[in-house]
């Protein structure tokens, strides 16, 4: 399989196999009018199998979404065909409008303008809680 190198864009690497499509959807990549390559089940020395997403455009990407879906993923920023920056994402402390509170008694359930903000409450359990009502986030 041959996927061309990208010149100016982003490579999301070391995504745990199976998380690639979830990230693709949550980052809204299907809505982009730029070349995006989704490579799944690549052999990886670090993770056994991994997924890779290549975006051949200089577009803003929500790193919090990447960190939430897969804190082990890395983001490579490519400029002029060269690796300009490599970022280890990790779990974000806060997520805004990524997760949505399912508690029907939460104020966000009746006021549409309020942002759905979740804070990392337990890193070992990968647990997030709504900042407004403290309800635990449901898995995406």
């Amino acid at each position, binding site marked *: 399989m041959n996927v061309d190198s990208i010149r100016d864009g982003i490579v999301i690497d070391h995504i745990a196999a199976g998380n690639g499509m979830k990230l693709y959807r949550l980052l809204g990549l299907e809505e982009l009018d730029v070349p995006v390559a989704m490579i799944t089940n690549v052999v990886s020395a670090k993770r056994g199998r991994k997924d890779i997403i290549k975006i051949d455009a200089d577009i803003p990407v929500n790193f919090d979404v990447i960190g939430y879906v897969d804190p082990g993923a890395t983001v490579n920023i490519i400029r002029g065909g060269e690796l300009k920056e490599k970022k280890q994402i990790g779990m974000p402390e806060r997520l805004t409008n990524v997760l949505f509170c399912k*508690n029907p*008694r*939460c*104020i*966000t*359930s*009746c*006021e549409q*303008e*309020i942002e759905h903000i979740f804070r990392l409450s337990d890193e070992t359990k990968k647990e997030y809680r*709504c*900042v*407004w*009502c*403290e*309800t*635990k986030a449901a898995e995406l």
Partner: protein
Amino acid sequence: MARYVIDVPDLTTDELAALMDTAEDIIARPDDYADACRRKKLATLFFEPSTRTRLSFEAAMYELGGNVLSVTGAGTSSAAKGESVADTAKTVSCYADIIAMRHPKEGAALVAAKAASIPVINAGDGGHCHPTQTLADLLTIRREKGRLDNLTVGLCGDLKFGRTVHSLINAMSRYEGLKFVLISPEELKLPSYVKNDALKKRGIPYEQTTDLEQVIGDLDILYMTRVQRERFFNEEDYLRLRDSYILTPEKLKKARADLSVMHPLPRVNEISVAVDDDPRACYFKQVLNGKYMRMALILMLLNIKGGAQA
């Protein structure tokens, strides 16, 4: 954004102690505080029914020499026209100096606090938090026992859904030498996340039982809550358990002479009226202590020194 109190963890242990000291000073020297909040206005925004909490806040402000602007019920406010909590808070910030707010939706008080330019006190947001009840509980324990540490605290009834119980456990877990005895039906046991966060992580000893009479003799504090019928799937279970948690003078015979019986109120039948005359009954003192702690909290958030500090 001004300082706010949405839940007890918004206050440091030193601030809690200072609030209790102020409340004690108000009790000892009420006249010294009679004009402390002169020309200040408290807005009580109560979007769901409340008797005790709203009256307590209003009495607190009047006893500090301040005034009260009041909204009771969503139907009589702009909320009925669809105004957001944030806009209501911004608007009221133009009229009042401090807000006490009760709202049926969880998180509403925090939304108001982040929008307001004046301090906001959460007077209850759905089943989420009710910090001034916990402040009343803490002052009651300190006044009755002379301390907040080295106590065996029994919590009895609905420990699963009772927000006052969760909040009290969280608040008291700051103090040394405590032991909790959790008395409830199996169906209404304390949720594991409260046990983990407040007790296990901090190494605080606790025991769980379904039998109040078996443990009542070990307790310094007995905090009663209501076992609610609607929490049971099975009517038989409810009827079986309900009566075992009704505190009667007979059951109190097994308790220590210095036990303090508390209840956040309102009660239904979980404490027999005959217990009211027992000197160990503290639940109406709790109501009064709630007013004094609300006075102390209003002073703190308005940065007003009263009494000897003025």
